[in-house]
C-alpha cells in the first residue's frame, strides 16, 4: 500500500476532519468585532466559545444599556454543542475506517449528513440569537435613534454608531475546513 492508495488518502482526510472537529469544540466558534469612531484602535471583540461569551464583555455590557440591548446571559445551546461536536468527531473517525463497499459509502455519507445538520443547526441558532438581540430590546432605552436590527451571521451590520462584524472564529473556520475535507474524502474514487 502506498500513500497514493485512495483508501489511505480517504481515511486520512476523514481522520483529519474528525480531529479538526474535536479540536474545534474547544476553540472559539464565532467572533464579533464592534468598531466605532471613538474606539479608534481598540475595536471591541466578543467571542463565543464552549464556556460562554468572552472578550470585551464588560465594555459591551456597559454600552448596551443605551440602546436597550439585553446581553444574552446564558446560551443553552452551548450545553449540547461541544458534546455534539465530539460525537460528530467520533462518527467521522468511524467513517474513516468504514470499508470500501456500499455500506462504507453509506456510513461516510451519513457522517457528512450529520455534519451538515450540525452546521445548519448551529448557524440557525446563532442567527436566531442575533435576531433576538436586535429585537428583544428594552424599547424605552435612552437612545431612540436605533431601531430593531438583525446582525448578519457573516459580515457587517450597522447598529447606531457601531459597525458589528460577525465572522467564524478559529473554531468555526476549523469546522468549515473539516466539512470540506470530509466531502473531499467521500468523493474519492475507489480502486478499480
Amino acid at each position: 500500500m502506498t500513500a497514493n492508495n485512495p483508501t489511505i488518502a480517504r481515511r486520512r482526510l476523514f481522520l483529519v476532519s474528525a480531529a479538526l472537529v474535536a479540536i474545534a469544540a474547544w476553540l472559539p466558534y464565532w467572533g464579533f468585532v464592534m468598531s466605532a469612531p471613538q474606539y479608534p484602535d481598540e475595536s471591541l471583540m466578543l467571542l463565543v466559545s464552549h464556556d460562554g461569551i468572552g472578550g470585551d464583555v464588560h465594555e459591551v455590557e456597559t454600552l448596551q444599556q443605551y440602546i436597550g440591548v439585553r446581553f444574552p446571559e446564558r446560551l443553552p445551546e452551548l450545553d449540547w454543542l461541544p458534546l455534539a461536536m465530539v460525537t460528530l468527531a467520533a462518527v467521522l473517525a468511524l467513517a474513516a475506517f468504514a470499508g470500501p463497499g456500499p455500506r462504507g459509502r453509506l456510513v461516510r455519507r451519513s457522517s457528512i449528513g450529520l455534519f451538515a445538520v450540525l452546521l445548519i443547526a448551529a448557524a440557525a441558532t446563532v442567527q436566531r440569537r442575533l435576531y433576538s438581540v436586535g429585537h428583544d430590546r428594552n424599547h424605552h432605552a435612552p437612545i431612540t435613534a436605533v431601531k430593531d436590527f438583525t446582525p448578519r451571521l457573516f459580515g457587517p451590520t450597522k447598529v447606531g454608531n457601531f459597525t458589528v462584524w460577525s465572522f467564524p472564529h478559529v473554531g468555526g473556520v476549523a469546522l468549515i475546513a473539516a466539512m470540506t475535507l470530509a466531502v473531499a474524502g467521500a468523493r474519492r474514487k475507489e480502486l478499480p
Partner: protein
Amino acid sequence: MTRIITLIVVAAAAVAALVQTLGCSETSSARTLAAQEVYVPPGEHDKYYAFLSGGQSGSVFVVGIPSGRLIREIPVFEPRAAYGYAVHPNDPRRRELEATGGAWGDTHHPAPSETNGVYDGRYLWINDLANGRLARVRLDTFETDRILKIPNLQGAHGIAVVSPNTKYIGVNGEFEQPTDGLATNPAPYTSVVAFVEPESMQVKFEVRVNGNIDIADSSKDGRYFFSTVYNLEQGKDMGGMIQFDRDALAAIDIAAAEKAVADGKAQVRNGVPIIDPEKAEGVLTLIPVPKNPHGVNVTPDGRYAIASGKLSPTVTIVDTKTLKIVAEPEVGLGPLHTTFDNRGNAYTSLFLDSQVVKWNVDKAVAGAPDYIIDRINVHYNIGHLQAAGGETMKPYGDYLLALNKLSKDQYLPVGPDMPEAQELIDISGEKMRMLAAFPTPPEPHDAVFMAASVLKSKVKQVFDVAANAVKAGDESVSRTGPHDVTVNMTMIRSAYTPETIEVREGDRVTFRMTNVETIRDMTHGFALPDHGLNVSLPPGATREITIDTPKPGVYWFYCTNFCSALHLEMRGRLIVQPKDGPVKISDWRAGQNVAGLEVPGVPSTEKSHDREKHHDREQSHDR
C-alpha cells in the same frame, strides 16, 4: 533735470520693490519650511514629550515637540480642581502638602530617572524651591507619587540625578541658614546639598557648603556631584553677595561622602547625617569660577563640567577627572545654562544678549579662535535652554527649546501679565533655525525632552485595581459610628451606585469611590456642591475622602468629566436629614433596595451583581 530726478526716483523705487519682493519670498519659503517641520497632523503623535517645570504654578507641563501642543499638566505642589488633585482640605494629598510646607510650590528643574546614562521613563523628580521639597512623578501614570520635605534645607533649587543609574537625586539648598537652624545663632549661615535615595525617597546624607548652592549636575560616571555656589562671602543682602571676584564650582566626591557617613564623621540633625567638609577631607572640592555663576552642565561624553558665568561673559570649562579649569572662553553677555548636541557642540543661553550661542567644546578647550559657530536671537531674556537629550549621554541633536523669561510683544496683549514664551529651534544644521514659539502659563524654568519611543509604551491608560477598590456589586452605605458613615461607591457610564445617600446633619461621611470603567479615557468626576468636594477618577482609579455634613438639605453630586450620552443624567443625591429629624435612616447594600428588601433570585456572585445593576438601571429607564 526734473526728468533725471524722476528717473532716479523711479529706478530707486523699482530696486526697492525688487529687493522687497525677493526678501519676502525668501522669508515666506523659510516660514513654510519651519511650519512643515513643526506641523504634526491631527491624530499623529509628536516625536518627544517635553516636561517643562511649571514654576510658580507648582506643576509640570507636558508639551509635545515639535508641535508645541500642551498635552497635560501634572499637578504637584498646588491643588488642581480639574484633576481632582488635593482640592478638599481632607484630601490625603492636600494634607500632605499642608504638612510639608503648603499647598503651593515653585517648581524649577525636572529630572528624569536614568539607566546607563539615558532616560528610562520610570520617574521624574521636580523640586519645590520655595518650601524645600522634592516630588517624584510616576511616568507610567503621570501622577505625583511622593512628596518629600527635605530637612535642614531652605530653597531647594538645583536638582540632578546622579548618573548613570540614578543612585541619588542631589538637591541644592540655595537659601543659607544658621547651621543649627536657629535665629539666635550668630555664626555665618550655610547651606547643604541633600542626597535622596530614588526608590525610598529618603535623604541619605547632606553635605554642608558655605555659600548659596545654585544649579546642579553630576559627572556621567557618578563620581562627582557638581553645584555652582555663589555668595562665598556668606553675605545676607544683595550687596554682600557680590563682593568676591570669584565664587565656586563645588564638586562633591560621592564615594568619599558615603565613606564619611559610614565612618561616623557626620553629625545627625533631624534624622539626616550632615557632613562638614572641613572635618571630612576629600568630600568637597571648590573650583574657583568668576563670581556668582549660574548653570553647570556636564558634556555628554562626561569629560567637562561647564559653569556659566552669569555676571561674567564667560563659561568655565572644568576637567571632570582632574577638577582643573582647562579653558574659560567668552561666549556673550549673561551666560546662564548650557546644553549639547551629539556633534561636540554646546549651546549657551545668554540672558542679557537674548541669544543662544552655539560653540564647539573641543575648539574652545584647544584655544582655537573660531570656537563660536552661530548665534540666534530669542525673545526675550532667555533663562534655561534644553536640547533633546542634552542632559544624557546620548543627545539627539535635532531640537532645542529656549525658555524665555519675557515675551513683551510676542503675543496678543492679554493685560499687564504677559504669557511665558518658549521658542523651538532646529539645531540639526550648522546654523540654528527658529521654528516656532508657544506660550504657557507661568512659569517654566527648565525642560527635558523624552523620546516618545522611550515612554509611550510604558504609559498606563487604565489604573490597576487598587487594594481598597470598591467592586461592582459591593457598594454600600453603612453607619460605622454614631456620627460616621462610610459610602462604598462605584461609577460607570452613566450612573453612580448608590445614587441616593442618606445621612444626618453633622455626620462625617467617608466616600470610597472606584471608577470601574475598563476602557481608556473614560474618566468620571464626583463633584459635591457646597462641600468643597471635586474629585476626578480616571478609569480604574479609587479615591477616598471624608467630608462633614454641616447643613441639612438635598445636594446633587454629579459627573464633572463629560463621559457619555447620559453624562448630564449621571448624578445622585446626598440627602442630609436634620439632626433630630423623624426620618429613620437604614444602611444600604447593593442587591437590596433602600427599604432593605432583598432583590429575589439573584445569586451573590460578582458577575450577577453586575448584571443585576444593569438590569436595575434598565428598569429605572422603564419608569
